[in-house]
């Protein structure tokens, strides 16, 4: 078309884009390091399934239509990339064709057919998107001008390309191709226009115009398309559409730790962390580059808000805002962060203390003037989180909210000494007597009196250790579950023992509340006890214990095979060691605990157990399985007061009551307490009973 | 025969029941009894002091003694003890007693024992029994000094209804005021309320009452029965009940004839405050509540439902 004009456009467009990207990347590099270049195969798989495959959009039953819409737009874009390259080529050389995609091969023809079809689909999807934002107005969407502008630009891109091809068709087919325009016309495959019905349809819209009009349209649409595309490209890094560029890398580089990045084991003895204030995240510069990339990538889709138990009960934690305000803080401090990183590179290697201090002082000058927790993120927001991971489960671009929140809590708890004071009682109890209620440690095994249960001290050679947990040992309601569990294990003749008074709290809630010191203390003591007894297999009665023992104790030298009691009971059933009858009366539903489901992917075994005891099967709650709704006790919140908004457990209890069942099965002592309390508050505790699966099984064993 | 000096428990011009309880025990042990009464405008109480079971009344009556001050208080007691040549000096359970007893003991170089629930003579030696380690154990203590200063636990001794005494007043000189610790103000507990420490019946309200409406409901019952109105820690912490109403290990220790625990679960700290009661009635929705482990009579039910019925039934039975 016009090599000069094209060159200018490309140089300017790509130049500006390159510069923007350079600064964005430089900013990320100024953040803390983290190693993500590993396990390439697994990463590629994630990329293909989640990013390219749009799994969390089309693979999610809820809002499948919206998911499909986005997937189509995304795939359309991917496919149109090749077309774009071709157009750039045409700007320089008339009749430019890409290798393999020219009219010599069937691939070329197939491509133009798919491209043609997708342009039509994308245009329809854009119209659907406008419809959703303007008419349907889903609560989770932010209807900003940016959203409309981008949709508009995508629309323009589709329309301009279709009209471009339409005009070409008209000139070639109707006006005898006065400009000798190139088009596919292969002897075997025929004319290109046989393969592109949509473009031909577009052509008919302007077929009534003269040849010169069509020629004019051709030229205008060509340059409109190129310019819109380059403008679009440069617009992307400025807002939420940056995800168009960063989503694929973000998914590729996501943490592979299960269920998400493990909380870093902080070295509390290291003096320098006090000077640098680097325990946890206290300043924006302490985010690592992947967390920075997360901020770039948030698409502001709001799915996290929809599933978040705190947001839906009117608490200030709004994950979209969380991402947004952190991103704003990051950008506001971008120059300083980059300067700071440069200074950091000049820190003396030789241990020159004076120079060290001088540089560190200069670095400190460049810190953000705002308090990260307090000014940027509110204190209430930070502590409202129950760490349920629903947000991480639905995020289409795999942003990891929870580890960030825990790291910020660490900063607060350890460095500032600021955390909800209600936790003090629980921490003190942990320290003194190994349980958050502070009940004498010597009473930990009282629940097992008269049940003929061995302690490890009496017989360390048993096959399984039954880890009872604090609730199962001290809480009156949960003790009943422990007793049922023992009944089942004894019926199946399992060789097991409990630690009894030697068992201490695993420290789970202390860790979630940012108190690494308390957590490490409990972990160290427990691991020592477990290793002394050479424990190999553990059955955990509580999903929080399960999670900590299985995924976190290895960090400190505790490596055991841990399963939850529902998994174990399922095994017992399947191997015939226990048999169940279907004598359970009434209607039944199951509430998936966050730490059993989303943290440990155990969804099927509890259900298979429940199906085996209930003639009428199981009614599922609306929010079940991977999208189960939290009971509200996780993240240390069990020990805190809930003063803002509606109570989470009441919200969940209402959902259960609405399902019209008389029993809700649970598999976690926190859920058991919270749901029972919720029912009491709704005055439905006579109508709907919460029972642990172990209790139901014990009642229905033959 | 031993000589026991009892410090009279006077509150707002009224002689309280613990004085009689202590004197009854002293008499039962065969001791010669005397009381020391300290305050202002208390001459009129002489007859009561004698009727409570004392044969001598040491009275320190002075305007300067109207408000409690440990120094002068202790001086009066030491004065009376020396004049009476007391072998044992007993205080009833009160903050004044707890604050003064150690001073008296130090001045007399006598042994001092608090929270006493039993006093026994083993030949010529005095032995006392007291709880320790949050009431988990009892200690038997042998007194090696000639004199013993003791603070007796609430409800430890029983009052002898037929006890009598003789009027024999000895005036004590007013001691100098303590210029170093001066009471500037006394913020009275709400007057007109039945004193928890003294009442025959005490009714306490706990978390089962939920809110102000529940508290008021139980308060009405207490008012009707002219009972002391107390509280568990939870209700004080939540702001629904005043500080001074808390019955428990860190609050008031009471030992009434009848204690009603309404909507109280029965945590150990609360039990420590009322387990000395003669009869305990508990009302709680939860049949597993620990309070039922110590209650003589337990009603499993919602206090909102039970309280009005209790009022009715008690009214009926009393008429």
């Amino acid at each position, binding site marked *: 078309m016009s090599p000069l004009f094209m060159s200018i456009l490309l140089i300017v467009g790509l130049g500006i884009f390159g510069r923007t990207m350079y600064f964005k990347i430089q900013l990320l590099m100024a953040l803390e390091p983290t190693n993500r270049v590993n396990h390439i195969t697994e990463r590629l798989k994630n990329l293909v399934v989640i990013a390219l495959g749009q799994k969390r959009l089309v693979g999610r039953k809820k809002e499948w239509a919206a998911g499909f819409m986005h997937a189509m737009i995304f795939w359309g874009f991917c496919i149109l990339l090749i077309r774009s390259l071709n157009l750039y080529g045409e700007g320089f050389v008339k009749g430019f064709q890409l290798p393999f995609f020219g009219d010599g091969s069937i691939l070329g023809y197939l491509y133009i057919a798919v491209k043609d079809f997708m342009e039509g689909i994308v245009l329809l999807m854009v119209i659907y998107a406008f419809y959703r934002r303007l008419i349907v107005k889903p609560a989770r969407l932010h209807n900003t001008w940016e959203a409309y502008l981008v949709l508009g630009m995508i629309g323009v891109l589709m329309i301009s390309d279709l009209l471009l091809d339409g005009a070409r068709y008209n000139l070639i087919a109707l006006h005898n191709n006065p400009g000798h325009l190139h088009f596919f016309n292969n002897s075997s495959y025929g004319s290109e226009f046989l393969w592109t019905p949509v473009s031909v349809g577009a052509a008919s819209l302007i077929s009534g115009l003269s040849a010169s009009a069509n020629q004019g349209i051709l030229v205008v649409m060509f340059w409109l398309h190129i310019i819109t595309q380059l403008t679009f490209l440069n617009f992307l890094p400025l807002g939420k559409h940056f995800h168009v560029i960063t989503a694929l890398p973000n998914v590729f580089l996501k943490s592979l730790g299960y269920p998400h990045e493990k909380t870093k084991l902080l070295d509390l003895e290291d003096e320098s962390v006090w000077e640098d204030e680097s325990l946890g995240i206290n300043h924006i510069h302490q985010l690592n580059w992947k967390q920075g990339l997360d901020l770039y990538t948030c698409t502001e889709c709001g799915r996290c808000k929809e599933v978040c138990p705190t947001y839906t009960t009117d608490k200030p934690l709004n994950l979209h805002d969380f991402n947004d305000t952190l991103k704003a803080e990051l950008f506001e401090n971008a120059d300083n962060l980059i300067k700071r990183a440069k200074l950091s590179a000049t820190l003396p290697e030789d241990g020159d203390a004076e120079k060290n201090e001088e540089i560190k002082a200069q670095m400190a000058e460049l810190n953000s003037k705002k308090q990260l927790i307090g000014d940027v993120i509110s204190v209430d927001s930070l502590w409202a989180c129950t760490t349920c991971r629903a947000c991480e489960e639905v995020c289409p671009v795999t942003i990891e909210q929870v580890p960030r929140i825990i790291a910020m809590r660490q900063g607060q708890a350890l460095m500032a000494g600021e955390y909800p004071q209600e936790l*003090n009682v629980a921490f003190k109890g942990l320290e003194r007597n190994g349980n958050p209620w502070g009940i004498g440690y010597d009473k930990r095994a009282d629940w097992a009196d008269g049940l003929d249960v061995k302690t490890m001290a009496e017989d360390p050679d048993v096959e399984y250790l039954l880890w009872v947990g604090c609730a199962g040992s001290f809480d009156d309601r949960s003790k009943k579950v422990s007793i049922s569990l023992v009944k089942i294990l004894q019926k199946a003749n399992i060789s097991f023992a409990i630690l009894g008074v030697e068992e201490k709290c695993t420290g789970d809630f202390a860790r979630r509340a940012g108190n690494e010191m308390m957590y490490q203390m409990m972990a160290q003591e427990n691991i020592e006890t477990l290793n002394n007894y050479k424990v190999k297999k553990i059955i955990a009665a509580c999903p929080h214990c399960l999670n900590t023992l299985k995924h976190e104790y290895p960090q400190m030298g505790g490596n055991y095979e841990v399963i939850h009691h529902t998994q174990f009971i399922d095994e017992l059933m399947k191997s015939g060691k226990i048999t169940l009858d279907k004598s359970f009366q009434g209607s039944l539903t199951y509430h998936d605990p966050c730490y059993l489901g989303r943290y440990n992917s155990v969804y099927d075994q509890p259900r298979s157990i429940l199906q085996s005891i209930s003639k009428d099967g199981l009614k599922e709650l609306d929010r079940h399985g991977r999208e189960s709704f939290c009971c509200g006790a996780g993240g240390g919140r069990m020990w805190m007061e809930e003063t803002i908004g509606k109570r989470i457990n009441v919200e969940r209890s209402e959902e259960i009551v609405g399902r019209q069942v008389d029993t809700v099965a649970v598999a976690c002592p926190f859920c058991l307490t919270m749901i029972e309390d919720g029912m009491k508050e709704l005055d439905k505790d006579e109508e709907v009973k919460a029972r642990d699966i172990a209790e139901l099984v014990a009642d229905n064993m033959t | 025969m031993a000589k026991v000096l009892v410090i009279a428990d006077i509150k707002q011009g009224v002689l309280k029941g613990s004085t009689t309880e202590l004197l009854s025990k002293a008499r039962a042990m065969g001791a010669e009894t005397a009381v020391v009464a300290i305050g202002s405008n208390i001459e009129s109480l002489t007859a009561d002091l004698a009727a409570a079971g004392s044969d001598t009344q040491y009275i320190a009556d002075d305007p300067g003694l109207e408000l409690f001050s440990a120094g002068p208080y202790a001086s009066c007691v030491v004065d009376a003890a020396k004049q009476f040549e007391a072998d044992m000096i007993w205080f009833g359970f009160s903050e004044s007693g707890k604050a003064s007893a150690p001073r008296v003991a130090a001045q007399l170089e006598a042994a001092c024992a608090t929270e006493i629930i039993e006093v026994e003579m083993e030949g010529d030696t005095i032995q006392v029994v007291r709880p*320790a380690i949050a009431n988990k154990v009892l200690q038997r203590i042998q007194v090696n000094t000639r004199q013993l200063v003791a603070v007796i636990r609430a409800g430890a001794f029983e009052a002898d209804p037929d006890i009598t005494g003789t009027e024999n007043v000895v005036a004590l000189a007013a001691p100098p005021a303590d210029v170093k610790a001066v009471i500037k103000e006394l913020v009275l507990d709400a007057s007109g309320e039945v004193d928890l420490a003294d009442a025959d019946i005490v009714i306490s309200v706990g978390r089962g009452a939920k809110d102000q409406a529940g508290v008021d409901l139980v308060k009405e019952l207490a008012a009707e029965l002219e009972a002391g109105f107390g509280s568990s820690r939870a209700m004080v912490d939540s702001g629904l009940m005043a500080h001074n109403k808390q019955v428990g290990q860190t609050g008031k220790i009471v030992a009434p004839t009848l204690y009603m625990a309404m909507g109280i679960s029965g945590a150990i700290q609360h039990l420590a405050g009322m387990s000395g009661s003669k009869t305990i009635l508990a009302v709680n929705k939860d049949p597993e509540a620990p309070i039922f482990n110590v209650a003589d009579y337990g009603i499993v039910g919602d206090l909102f439902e039970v309280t009005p019925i209790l009022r009715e039934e008690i009214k009926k039975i009393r008429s």
Partner: protein
Amino acid sequence: MKILTTVKKVVDVELNIHLENGAIVEKGLQYVINAWDENAVEAAVQLKENNGAETTLVSVGGGDNTDMIRKCYAMGIENGIHIEDPALVDAGSSVFAKVLQKVFENGDYDLVITGKQAQDTDSGQTGIMLAEALSIPCVSNVISIEVIDDQNIKVSRLGDAGTEIVEIELPAVVTVSDSINEPRLPAMRGIMMAKKKKIQVMDLAALGTSAEEVCGSTPKSKIIEFMASQSRQAGQKFEGDAAEITAKVVDLLANEAKVL
């Protein structure tokens, strides 16, 4: 202002206490700071933070008190003294008071803050006896402390008739109720720094006294036996129709227990 706080190590009252032959079984017991003394430490630290007071703690007896004292350092106490001596093994309130008297006289303290009683004995005598020995004022069961100036403080005390507001001329002893404050959980930074702080350990000789001087020839009283406490037993529990069971219970209260 210089403040002296006393802390006592006591058995953790959360645990079950087992008796054998009239003595307490030591096995399995753990020892912690007396809860009321924790309140005293917190009160002292608050006076340091608000009024610039200098704080010292003293612990008498108890064996290895390092952990307990470090925890108080982490809360904010600046200096620590531990008096340990074989003669103090069976010490009671009056012996503690004499030892504390020596400690007080060795420094120049303005205010002594102690917990109102110890969780193992519930005696509540030591603070008052110390004041008597030093001939300085003592106010017990205090729920708030306010500094007027270098020589005077104002406290609120829970008395029998109500709350007493008392002005005290220093030096003085104040014993505190648990209602005075909520002891802080030491911040991590405090705990790390406390690890490096020294504790001044002295026996009676180093303190400038002797076993004869503080303990006397015979103790004033002696514990000769520990016995199980009489616990109440569960009585009758009624479930069912509220009207019916309430009527029944009232009847029993009147005619069986005879308390109405």
